[in-house]
């Protein structure tokens, strides 16, 4: 049984239709995003299902996960805060921003908060260099830019996520 193929049949058909019929393989990057939607990472099972749908080998699919930075083979935080500290942003205070935010959250760069809600990662240029400090937030379901941020504005955002999670739990 192929769970991805069944659950997302229509969506997958639409994606494959963007490419010539004999070039289904071009859909693999979109399918990897779909696989990450539920739990933020691509499992072994996902890999073989995608391979089956696109008539690729599992190895061909798996090799992409290590190559591209936005795919993950292990579970991570629900919200990945990916802060740019590349040269232009660093010239506008990105490194200090990361240090202070990490202090506030009691974690180091690359770590996840104990409740599993947030991680802080340092990433390369995100094409928003005039709006530092800035970060993107990656979740299973997409990516969102937050520009001209401060530790306060970021903490407010995190509080909102906490509230959303707690209201879901109760």
């Amino acid at each position: 049984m192929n769970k991805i193929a069944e659950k997302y049949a229509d969506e997958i058909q639409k994606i494959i239709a963007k490419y010539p019929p004999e070039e289904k393989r071009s859909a693999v990057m979109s399918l990897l995003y779909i696989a990450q939607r539920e739990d933020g990472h691509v499992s072994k099972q996902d890999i073989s299902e995608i391979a089956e749908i696109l008539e690729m080998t599992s190895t061909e699919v798996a090799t992409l996960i290590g190559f591209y930075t936005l795919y993950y083979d292990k579970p991570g935080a629900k919200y990945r805060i990916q802060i740019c500290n590349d040269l232009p942003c660093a010239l506008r205070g990105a490194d200090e921003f990361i240090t202070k935010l990490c202090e506030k959250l009691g974690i180091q760069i690359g770590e996840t908060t104990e409740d599993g809600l947030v991680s802080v990662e340092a990433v390369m240029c995100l094409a928003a260099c005039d709006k530092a400090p800035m970060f993107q937030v990656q979740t299973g379901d997409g990516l969102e830019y937050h520009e001209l941020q401060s530790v306060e504005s970021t903490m407010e955002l995190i509080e909102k996520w906490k509230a959303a999670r707690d209201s879901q739990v109760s």
Partner: protein
Amino acid sequence: MSKYILLRHREIPDINKLDVYKKNGGFEAFRNAVTAMKPDEVTEIVKTSGLRGRGGAGFPTGLKWSFMDNNNWPHYVVANADESEPGTFKDREIMESNPFQFLEGVAISSYAVGANAAYVYCRGEFWQVAHYLDEKIAELEEAGLLGENLFGTDYSLRIYTHLGAGAYICGEETALLESMEGKRGQPRLRPPFPPSFGLYGKPTVVNNVETLTNVPLIITNGGQWYKDLGTEDTTGVKVFSLSGRVKEPGNYELPFGTTFRELIYEHGGGIIDDRPVRAIMAAGASSALIVADDKALDTPMDYASVRELNADLGSASIIVIDDTVSIDWVLNKTVHFFKHESCGKCTPCREGNYWMSHIIERIHDGEATQNDVELLHSVANQIQNKCLCALGEFSIQAVMTGIERFPQDFEAAVK
């Protein structure tokens, strides 16, 4: 005369809405091309304009289109929206704020080279941008401006977005095509070049977002109109992404040939706290470091003039560095970037960047000697001219020129 050719959203509110874009002449150039011009005539106008690629290499756009192999079909157009060079953020503004002009450029170029399918390859981080473009493309299909038998002719065109997933190297056009084919984004051996062997082995034009966004107004106003802007060798206008230690960073659309001084001081408001400017990187992190003396500041920003400073204009991503940071700190950042982004296909780039990052870290941490600085320079030297793609060359630009042009910073950093 309007102020903008590319960033027209800054003077025309709501140009991101189709009716407003159309009221301002939108899709007339495409209609005119499809209904009244032969594909070659479109290419001729672009040749006359002198338009050169805005993705960094500056290759003449019309000439590239004329290289498409007409004995091999179908043809494709791929818009390069990978925009990952540190310091570059112009394509994102164009796509977010003036999306229809960009898409009309894609459409006209597709007609010019006989492509019935075009793709916009967006870096994975442009998730929101790609979804936004999908909406705009759907509107165009509904309005009959994309789809089958356009304007009652037998020309058909579909445009699709394709989302990457985080890899700077996918901006290199052949790596981009590999990535589109569902593989790891690693550059191909060239030749053959994409106009003879591109996407799925078919003739393909790859053009930068900004390049394509110029096209509608060139077709409307004529090649000569565009050629009269800018300089003789570098015609037209450019969106300069200005970042770093300036008071007002941002995108500035200006004619080629504007000086660094005008960009930094008149448009960018000068340096934060009115400190002295020390160094300029003109092509993002891939740049040589230019010593920001009076001569450099008064240099016009066109390809040839910047070359005279032993640097390149590239994608015109101007990073401004003042005296609050040292050059070894700058190199620590650029080397870290290239080490992370090397695709690993060739040894000099992969291993060289690995070694450079170790050495520069030691230097920056104050644990190195002058010998290490020389070693760093020699590792960079060994990478030169030995790589499959330009990333290898990019990775050593700042290293070599930083050590050569700012030796005092390294003397201060070592034991």
